[in-house]
């Protein structure tokens, strides 16, 4: 996983609540066995017309948002399916940070594991950032994970909070499995005790 420290870039405004993972990446694009290559299908149902041409009204088809690295949205971003293809598609497109009032749990967790930073800020603040984003390419936002602040184009700094453990992994680009493997003796011990108490959990399937 690529580390996330500080990101300065164009933010795309998507002023809608409940942007679900079927919108982010429709199910027909889940038939892949790779993590990469999904960027072209990001928001496919909104981004393309039925004949496959671009929908010019969709924000990511407009300059400068074609190169957006940050997305601003409203409540409950990433609700619905558990598909990790949602952060994979965002990442493959080039979006490494989503700012919204809150996130659906599974999407939130999936994002961190792929170096996509979900930043939760109050609705009023998201509305301000939405206005910043609408100003386009001259109004870049900075997301500084080290200092946990979003810097607005006017220089105002907005603090945010991220789980310290997730922040540590993200800042250093560490993957969870290696961390957990260090607890192998404790896992062995747990299994030995559980096996004695509930042997049926260890029957062959």
């Amino acid at each position, binding site marked *: 996983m690529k580390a996330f420290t500080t990101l300065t870039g164009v933010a795309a405004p998507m002023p809608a609540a409940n942007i679900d993972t079927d919108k982010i990446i429709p199910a027909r694009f889940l*038939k892949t066995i790779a993590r990469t290559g999904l960027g072209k299908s990001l928001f496919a149902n909104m981004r393309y017309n039925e004949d496959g041409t671009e929908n010019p009204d969709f924000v990511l088809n407009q300059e400068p948002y074609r190169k957006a690295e940050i997305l601003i949205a409203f409540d409950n971003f990433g609700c619905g*399916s558990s*598909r990790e293809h949602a952060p994979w598609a965002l990442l493959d497109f080039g979006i490494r940070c989503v700012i919204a009032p809150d996130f659906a749990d599974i999407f939130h967790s999936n994002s961190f594991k792929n170096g996509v930073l979900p930043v939760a800020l109050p609705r009023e603040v998201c509305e301000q950032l939405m206005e910043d984003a609408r100003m386009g390419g001259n109004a870049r936002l900075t997301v500084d994970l080290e200092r946990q602040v979003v810097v607005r184009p006017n220089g105002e700094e907005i603090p945010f909070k991220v789980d310290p453990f997730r922040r540590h992994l993200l800042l250093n680009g560490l993957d969870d499995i290696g961390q957990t493997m260090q*607890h192998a003796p404790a896992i062995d011990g747990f299994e030995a005790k559980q096996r004695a108490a509930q042997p*049926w959990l260890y029957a062959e*399937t």
Partner: protein
Amino acid sequence: MAGPRTLFDKIWDAHVVETLPDGTAVLYIDKHLTHEVTSPQAFEGLRLAGRKVRRPDATIAVVDHNIATDSSRYGRIEDPESRQQVETLERNVVEFGVPYIPLTDIRQGIVHVIGPELGLSLPGMTLVCGDSHTSTHGALGALAFGIGTSEVEHVMATQTLLQKPAKNMRVTVNGKLPAGCTAKDIVLAIIGKIGTGGGTGHVIEYAGEAIRALDMAGRMTLCNMTIEAGARAGMVAPDQVTFDYVKGRPFAPKGADFDKAVAWWKTLPSDEGAHFDKEVVLDAAEIAPQVTWGTNPEAVLPITGTVPDPALVEDEDRRAQMQRMLQYMDLQPGQKLEGLKIDVAFIGSCTNSRIEDIRAAAAIARGKKVAEGVRALVVPGSGLVKKQAEDEGLDIVLKEAGFEWREAGCSMCLGMNPDKLKPGQRSASTSNRNFEGRQGPGGRTHLVSPAMAAAAAIHGQLVDIRKLQEGV
């Protein structure tokens, strides 16, 4: 442990291997179900890191999402990407020694139907799957939740997950459910009340007389759609209904082990005075058959309702969103839901494809005909459900009425196999998500119970099931 605990707390505590300094737990996972869509990248990750599946005996794989549900599935899968995904899973299960239920096995079916059916999911367990509807298995009194592919890989490698404890939420449904209403109507009413984000960060325990009165299939429908309220897991405390359901299932504990298990399961219900961070109470008597009108499950109303008017919504963004929903759904403010013409009726999905659901549909269809121009599908949740229905003659009833009788799979719940809505088509569907394009690009979904979907198929429009049952 100090103080009274909830059902969630008890299962959580019993599975904490270690707690890290910041409160993150290394949580042991008892059962891992996996399918073709969210596993290939996880197996690939293991392979690249030279890791093994730690406990193949606690893992089981099945194909369900992108397979066809007609006889064509037994030949070569036509869609090259679907074929690649199924073949990849079949290679991976051999390489990593994971038990697998192939398409040709009568036990094959939707992962959330076969788990409980085979006794793979048990009370008190921690159970995960790379699928958000894993919440279904909470019906047994298990802690079951959906995970992403990185977590699938994490569970395969370590049999654990790194998790922070969720908050506790209790939804109590008092009283008796009126005739014509089902678990589907309860859960849609709950989502309508608390919203799609109402359960975020929480595990929901369902309680109250109306919940206790549900059979296991109903409890599964209820827990299944808990994710649509934002809660990763839904749970119903195990009781005699649960124990009777589990007893004798192929992978359930047997003999003395079963008695020992029941003794533990009986200790799981929430203690008197246990703390819930959030409480919601509903009166079952006030629930009517529910129909969604918009493009998320909280956009739901009783069948007697009319489409809401965006002009009455103050918040500009919410108003725009509602306008967008009505435009997508091709509905007008004030329009009655009853009488809305449909093109397709779909009875199936991990929400409503169990034998009880098929019986409910067949009871409506018996001696009737599907309306002209309507396509109606019944897709059993597993090969075993299909066989049971056929043993009861339900397939004949449904086929005589003009319903298609299909093979087990996810089918028209999500647009990634051949069963899809065409653009502009309107469906009455027993599935769980009415998102834009969920059943196929441009498709318009109205979520309903199995009886309501079957009635819509017969009448060619959304109808109030209570009127039919009264014989009006």
